[in-house]
């Protein structure tokens, strides 16, 4: 009996030793040199593997950064400036700070404002719906409401508001990876500069039809009247194809354009209530759900 145990121990140990030797030599033979800095950089990255940087996963991004001479084309939207600064330190290269961004949904066409004219009954995907036709409402530019952006978000930063049928971005969770921007077939979502206290002013519409047609399809559509352009003191607003656009880099958040917009297409979010009573009413009337979000 004891000899059996002895033999088992000896033979197993011998097999183990031989295998170890073989493994050692094989490992030596097939060793691939890898820059140790790749591991270091990968370590500090957020490991979200969201692809927001444009590379396949965080490791791919780290490899690319280690190889590159200039870090200016690289940016990790999830980690932000802090992570980029750390990465630059490891690699001994310089990196410029970029403004943090946040996703903004540019459509306010809830069923109240934008009546449904037909009913979609296909697979629940905006991309499929948009390949078929212009959507359930008269507006062919606006939100289709099937939630591709919600499905694609890795950070739980976007959800469908059941009442309005529109996606809502949770600013604190949004990393500006841009996945929702890419997936939206109507290009409604835009990455805009993140302001203090998450304040936002933007044209919540992408309708490029003439004013009359746009207004007929949706009450809160931008009709391209240029009233906002006239009132803007910073030249931040341009109108093209009957659609106004506020340049986030020029906008000083003065809110004058919001007041003059005849269709309430410009939204102000996370601002304190206005002092003049009349205007407060107007602002809350415009989009009560949104102003109360935060």
């Amino acid at each position: 009996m004891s000899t059996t145990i002895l033999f088992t121990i000896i033979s197993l140990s011998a097999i183990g030793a031989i295998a170890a030797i073989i493994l050692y030599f094989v490992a030596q033979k097939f060793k691939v040199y890898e820059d140790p800095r790749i591991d270091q950089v990968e370590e500090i990255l957020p490991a979200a593997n969201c692809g927001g940087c444009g590379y396949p996963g965080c490791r791919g991004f780290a490899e690319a950064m280690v190889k590159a001479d200039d870090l200016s084309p690289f940016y990790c939207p999830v980690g932000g400036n802090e992570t980029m600064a750390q990465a630059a330190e490891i690699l001994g290269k310089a990196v410029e700070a970029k403004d943090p961004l946040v996703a903004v949904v540019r459509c306010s066409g809830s069923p109240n404002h934008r009546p449904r004219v037909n009913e979609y009954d296909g697979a629940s995907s905006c991309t499929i719906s948009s390949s078929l036709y212009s959507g359930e409402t008269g507006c062919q530019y606006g939100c289709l409401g099937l939630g591709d952006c919600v499905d694609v978000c890795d950070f739980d930063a976007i959800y469908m508001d059941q009442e309005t049928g529109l996606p809502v971005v949770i600013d604190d969770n949004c990393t500006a990876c841009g996945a929702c921007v890419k997936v939206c077939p109507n290009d409604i979502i835009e990455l805009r500069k993140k302001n203090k206290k998450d304040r936002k002013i933007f044209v919540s519409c992408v309708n490029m039809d003439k004013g009359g047609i746009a207004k007929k399809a949706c009450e809160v559509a931008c009709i391209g009247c240029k009233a906002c352009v006239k009132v803007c003191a910073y030249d931040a607003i341009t109108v093209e194809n009957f659609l106004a656009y506020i340049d986030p880099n020029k906008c000083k958040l003065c809110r004058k354009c919001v007041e003059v917009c005849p269709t309430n297409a410009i939204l102000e979010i996370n601002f304190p209530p206005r002092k003049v009573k009349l205007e407060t009413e107007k602002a809350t009337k415009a989009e009560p759900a949104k102003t109360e979000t935060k």
Partner: protein
Amino acid sequence: MNKTITISPSPHVYEDTTAKRLMFDVVIAMLPVLAFSIYFFGMGAIIVTLTAVVSCLAFEWLIQKFLLKQEPTISDGSALVTGILLAFNVPANLPIGIIIIGSLVAIGVGKMSFGGLGNNPFNPALVGRVFLLISFPVQMTSWSMPTGFSNSYTDAITGATPLGVMKEGIGAGESVSAIMDKIPSHMELFYGHMGGSMGEIAALAIMIGFAYLLIRKVITWHIPVSIIATITIFTGILWLANPEANADPLFHLLTGGVMLGAVFMATDYVTSPMSVKGMWIFGIGIGVITVLIRVYGSYPEGVSFAILIMNAFVPLINSYIKPKRFGELRND
């Protein structure tokens, strides 16, 4: 125009077949088998079937409602099929408690743990059956005899199955012709006058069910035929080589779970291959493993093991055996 019209991608018409209808067709096909087992096993058959069906439905509902927090889908009929199949695979005098345990394993482990209908790799009823066979070998192999309603459920007259008699006899060195005298004739085997699991005894009833499934286009013939053909050929060779040491092919087909397994268990959509070629491989595999277990293994019967083993190969078969594409170049 005031009405809202519907827009959806093509196609705009649908066949009226639903998953539910397919499941209830299977239930209808199993009714003749159930009728035969009630005729032969009396009250026991009714009690076992009812217990299995009710507990399978109950477990599926409870698991979906409270564990998975989904909308329960017991009305789709798949748990009903599992319940009846489980009952078909146990003796008619099995205690109620054991049946309930079997149902829990079948539904809980065999089906819901993988994500419910459509995602289970193994046939749930067979998972339940094999679990019981290993856990309660005595109760699972004390087969009640086909004595109809004169047999009581709790105190049934029990005996061995023809396969058991055969295995024991050959093991003891008796010749096949001598053993044959101890067991029912082939004709009796055909209409099910023998001891065994509830649903496996009546080959006649199973064939009626098979015909119904084929007419309703619920299943194709490939899997049952490939299993039966393989078993016939394999046991036929053994029998021709030495008729005194091996039973004839007909005996193998009519006894045990071959017919039940081939028609109702191996053809389960979820756990069988998708392509015709794959179905042949699947069926041949089941046939070969069944005969190997019966002739060379220690169990007298091996259909349920064979099906479970081949179930495990289905994903592999599906990813390697592809249907031939239209216009596929022949040289690649």
